[in-house]
Every structure is written in C-alpha cells, then in structure tokens.
C-alpha cells in the first residue's frame, strides 16, 4: 500500500503510546512537518513491512531515538535508531 506523502491518516493499533494515542482511533499525520523530541512519528520497520508509531525521545544526526509512553512498550532499545528514510510522517492531531 502506498501512503500519501503530505497528509495521511493513521489508525493506531496497540497500547504502547497510551494515553496519548488511543488504540483504534484515527489520527492525521504529515511527512513535511519538522520532527522534534516529544513528537509521535510513524515509521516503517527497517527490514520488513511493519509500520510503527512511537514518540521521539531524542533527535540524532542519524535519525531518531524513539520510545513508548508505557514502560513495557518497545523503543529504540528493541527497534534501533530510526533512520530518517524510515519515517513516513508525524502525527498532527493529538
């Protein structure tokens, strides 16, 4: 499935970003907005088709260190640093 670049909708599945992102709820995201620490970004798995949404913990030259908002959720410790080319966009309407 090809995602539109400028503005697209994201349906959240899973509770790792609770209570900021509600499972089942649809959010708008854009690829053009600047991404900063605290923003929620949508990105594609480095190898594979899975698409994730996580919060930016730290902006690095090479990309983004990400985290879940619940302590038991995955983050960069499991997923690695998210490269800019993996990022599809930033969630807008939180």
């Amino acid at each position, binding site marked *: 499935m090809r995602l539109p670049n400028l503005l697209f909708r994201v349906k959240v599945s899973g*509770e790792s970003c*609770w*209570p*900021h992102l*509600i*499972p089942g*709820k649809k959010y708008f995201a854009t690829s053009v907005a600047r991404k900063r620490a605290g923003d929620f970004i949508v990105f594609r798995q480095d190898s594979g088709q899975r698409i994730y949404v996580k919060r930016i913990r730290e902006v690095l030259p090479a990309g983004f260190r990400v985290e879940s908002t*619940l*302590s*038991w959720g995955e983050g960069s410790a499991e997923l690695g640093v998210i490269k800019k080319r993996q990022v599809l966009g930033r969630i807008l309407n939180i």
Partner: protein
Amino acid sequence: MFSTITAEAHCDVPCGIYDPTAAKVAAKTVLRMVMQLKEIAPPKDTDSSDPAAMTHYHNMLVRRIWIKEEQARLCKQELSILWSDFFKPEHLEQYPEIHDLFWKSLKLCSKNKQEADQEAAEKLCELVDRIAEIFYTVKKAPERFEAYKQITDKLF
C-alpha cells in the same frame, strides 16, 4: 513368632516433581500487573468523552486485574502443594519457620488479590524466595537455588 514392621513405599503422583519456580513466576506476574496498573492513566481530557477510548481504558485495567487475581490464586495453589505435599516433619525440625512462612505467604496471596499494592507483591516475591532457598537446601541442591534466582529475578 515373627514381629511385623511397616516399611513405607509411599510416593505421590507425580513422584518427586516439586519446584517453587512456578510460584515465583506467578508472584512476579502479580508484581508486574500491579506496576502496570499504577502506570496506566485514564484517557486525556480530549478523549475522556470518547466511549471507545473509555472502553479500552477499562479493558486495559480489567485484563491486568484479572491476571493479577488468577496468578495470585495460582501462586497460592503452588505454595499449598509445596507446604502440604513436599515438606515433611523432619524439614520442620530443621527449619521451624516453615509453617509461619507458608501461612504468611498464603495470606499475602489473598492480600494481592484484594489490593493492588506493590509492597505486598514485592513481599510475596521475597517470601517465595525464602521458601525456595529452604526447598533447594533440603533437596541438597543449593546450586539450583542460584539458578532459580538468576532466572526468576530477571523475568522483567
């Protein structure tokens, strides 16, 4: 003419398969659920009027409460089996604390069902560890206690 003595060849089924690891896994699961229950916040104001968000919130809580309840029950069951089936009078002579230790542990299982109290869950893990230490000592396998600790302390 000949006196008769009774020689016990009793063996439970399954024979000799007792271990405190299952109780510790259950106790640690209780602790994990309590910690998660403390962390799960209600939906933000902007989502609090959304029935789906509220349903999800309640579901998140209830699932953890249910798991906590079930694992505390399982911990109580595993401990009860060790207490009633594994430990023998000679063990009690060696470790007079055994009855009190089990009684307090079983009471703590109930407390952990009634409440979501991290201190009570941590105390349960601590008492199960002491039971395990005695268990492996009387089994004459102290190295298994070290293995038990290494595995169960790193479950999360």
